[in-house]
């Protein structure tokens, strides 16, 4: 069975640009969460979507936005990129909001 997939795997952007990251959950999973992981730290919660509705948002600026599509895949958008946005962006899916979250391989974003 396919796990959580994310694209692209790596991305290089310059300050001020916009980026879109994509995630496909495990088949049958309806909840998708996004996390940001900077080097040496644990992942930090950005968003959770369940049944295509935003269920929660972490302590991130409005430059970060996301959405979930009818097939439960999801996009994370970041506008006006800053150097500090360089990180590993992780997507996790679960069958319901409160159940075990399974992570994808992540997208490594470098902002120059």
């Amino acid at each position, binding site marked *: 069975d396919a796990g959580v997939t994310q694209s692209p795997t790596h991305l290089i952007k310059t300050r001020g640009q916009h980026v879109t990251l994509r995630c496909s959950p495990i088949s049958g999973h309806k909840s998708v969460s996004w996390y940001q992981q900077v080097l040496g730290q*644990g992942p930090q919660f950005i968003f959770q979507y369940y049944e295509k509705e935003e269920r929660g948002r972490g302590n991130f600026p409005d430059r970060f936005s996301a959405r979930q599509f009818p097939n439960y895949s999801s996009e994370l958008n970041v506008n006006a990129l800053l150097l500090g946005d360089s990180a590993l962006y992780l997507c996790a899916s679960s069958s319901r909001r409160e159940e075990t979250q399974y992570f994808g391989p992540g997208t490594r974003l470098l902002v120059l």
Partner: protein
Amino acid sequence: EDQVTQSPEALRLQEGESSSLNCSYTVSGLRGLFWYRQDPGKGPEFLFTLYSAGEEKEKERLKATLTKKESFLHITAPKPEDSATYLCAVQAPTSGSARQLTFGSGTQLTVLP
């Protein structure tokens, strides 16, 4: 605010030398405690979920236990392939309807042959 503290930050073991990793947490009401393994540059790989104090789970050389304030990940006779960063996370009720995970900073384990 939910807090998760993992110790030690780094641990070096000889192959076969058993040890334990600690995860201390402060939450208003625990819904679940999760252990993940993360290899460099990859996403976290799920290991265990624990829901209540006294619960224990095992998988190969790993055993996770839970008390009301902390969790331990015991590694018995580790092998070099067990080298990774081990992350602990808690899921607790929030003011909204999200069920996000709050992670510790991880313990970087190195097992030497």
